């Protein structure tokens, strides 16, 4: 307390007489100077944020009530785009594709992430080096992984079909077969997302004392019992975080990988909602309709994250 008062006094002295007009209460002038500093630190950040984030969010909502093809001014059509959306058979299909893509991608990532984290949660001499092998795919871009995996998927010639042929299976044309295209994109995305899942789970597992697991083993608890009674309570909260992070990663890959590898095909089986929005905006130049779709995407996103947040609260 004394320190603070002395500080104020010194500050007042240092400020000199010219500044003294409003400082009959020294505390007030100090606080106002704090506010000025805070404004200075925040202004550049908030100005850019407002121009390129806040305004576009508001603009997206406004555009969704208009019809616009970049020529001339946007025309107000009220709920026209939303009505068109309901009649558009491609819309529910895109949502279904997105949901399937998330389901077949996120669930394996979470399960494999936990299992692999449990596997590598052991100390040995080169554990750091070996764990690097698990983490390093995280730095690969969607573009680079697309090229790499397309090579692995090459029909008849690629490594995957080569390995399958060894066990007598004739591999499909992974990326151009309607049954396997979406799964093939999921596999790439799982490969890219696993490192973060493993990392997060490993952090949670390392908080469980090894003695607890050893004691359980001495008590004769089986692998399943250990998983249920010791591991799961320790990683339950982390699981929701892993799910959220993985959904965010898959949301990004549902554009990048689709645009680079399949362009929504074959016969639209990989047209995710994000890709459909991009297509409506930049190929069909229906900016109003694309905006309405993107509001739908935002709503879906909010529902999913809301449910997860509720689950998180429930889990505690």
């Amino acid at each position, binding site marked *: 307390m004394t320190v603070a008062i002395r500080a104020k006094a010194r500050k007042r002295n240092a400020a000199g007489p010219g500044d003294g007009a409003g400082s009959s209460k020294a505390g007030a002038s100090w606080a106002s100077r704090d506010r000025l500093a805070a404004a200075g630190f*925040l202004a550049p950040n908030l100005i850019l944020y407002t121009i390129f984030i806040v305004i576009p969010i508001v603009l997206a909502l406004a555009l969704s009530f208009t019809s616009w093809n970049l020529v001339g001014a946007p025309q107000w059509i009220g709920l026209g785009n939303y009505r068109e959306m309901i009649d558009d058979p491609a819309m529910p299909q895109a949502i279904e594709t997105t949901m399937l893509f998330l389901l077949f991608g996120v669930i394996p990532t979470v399960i494999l992430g936990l299992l692999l984290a449990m596997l590598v949660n*052991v100390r040995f001499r080169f554990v750091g080096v070996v764990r690097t092998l698990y983490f390093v795919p*995280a730095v690969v871009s969607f573009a680079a992984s697309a090229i790499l995996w397309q090579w692995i998927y090459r029909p008849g010639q690629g490594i995957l079909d080569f390995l399958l042929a060894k066990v007598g299976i004739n591999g499909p044309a992974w990326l151009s077969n309607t049954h396997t295209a979406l799964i093939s994109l999921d596999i790439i995305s799982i490969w890219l997302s696993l490192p973060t899942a493993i990392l997060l789970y490993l952090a949670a597992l390392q908080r469980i004392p090894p003695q607890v697991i050893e004691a359980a083993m001495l008590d004769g608890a089986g692998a399943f019992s250990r998983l249920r009674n010791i591991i799961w309570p320790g990683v339950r909260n982390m699981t929701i975080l892993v799910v959220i992070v993985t959904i965010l990663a898959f949301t990004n890959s549902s554009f990048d990988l689709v645009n680079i590898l399949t362009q929504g095909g074959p016969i639209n089986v990989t047209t995710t909602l994000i890709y459909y929005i991009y297509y409506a905006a930049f190929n069909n130049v229906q900016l109003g309709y694309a905006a309405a779709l993107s509001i739908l995407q935002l709503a879906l996103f909010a529902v999913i994250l809301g449910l997860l947040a509720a689950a998180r609260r429930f889990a505690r």
Partner: protein
Amino acid sequence: MIRLRARVRRTIRITAITIIGLILAFPLIYLVLGSVMTSAQLTSFPPQFIPTSFHLGNYSLAWDYMRGRSVLNSVIFTVATVGLQWALCISAGFALAKLRFRSSNKVTALLGVSLFVPIITTLVPTFIVTDKFHLVNTYPGLILPIVAQTGFGTLLFRQYITGLPTELVDAARVDGTSWLGILRRVIIPLATPATGAYVAISVLTAWNMYLWPLVVATTPNVQVMTETLAPLASSEYGSIPENVGFAATALTTLPMVVAFLLAQRAFVRGLAGSGVE
């Protein structure tokens, strides 16, 4: 007897860990090996994995294909984006953490909103705003809208700096240090771990970014590497030999792999922190 069984089990486990790790990293290992093969060896069937001869020339051909310019643009984009955004985030995070003013919580909430808005929602409007400033196909147009995504970074620094002892700030105030001086001489040095995690994850995101450059940078003078690389995955693969395509892919990927190996701690913390919103 029990001890022997435990040792055998441990050996099996470590072997399994190593093999699975090699499988997971295999695509990357294959990328590096394939990038120095001859085209004939890379496309041979059954697939070959060990290069019979080394062709580093693939990389100079890849450089020519990427026109060098896109590599340079990726470097400019990454450095400018991360540098500017870091400055905005650490100063704002400091203000939110240690300076007292009325609307502090409101500002924090406003910045938090962006974490829950998918990029695609703001893609078209952000493009329109950028176009209104006549910044399409310019460096500022490519860089500034990404710099503006300050939500994650600001909240990260706010959280970290809140944890730093307030006495240090008070002591500096007593000495008459200005707020800017406190930021520079006290906060920034102490926040180095947070900066490390932030820089690692941000460099990675910027270097690998595809969607925004695809939309706003369509001319060769501003295109980044992900844009010149992506066409290799579609029909245009025929434009260059496969081994050169591998070298081009490696050229964009290896800098991040090396960065990861050198700063694994920062990357691990950054990747883990990317979820802790």
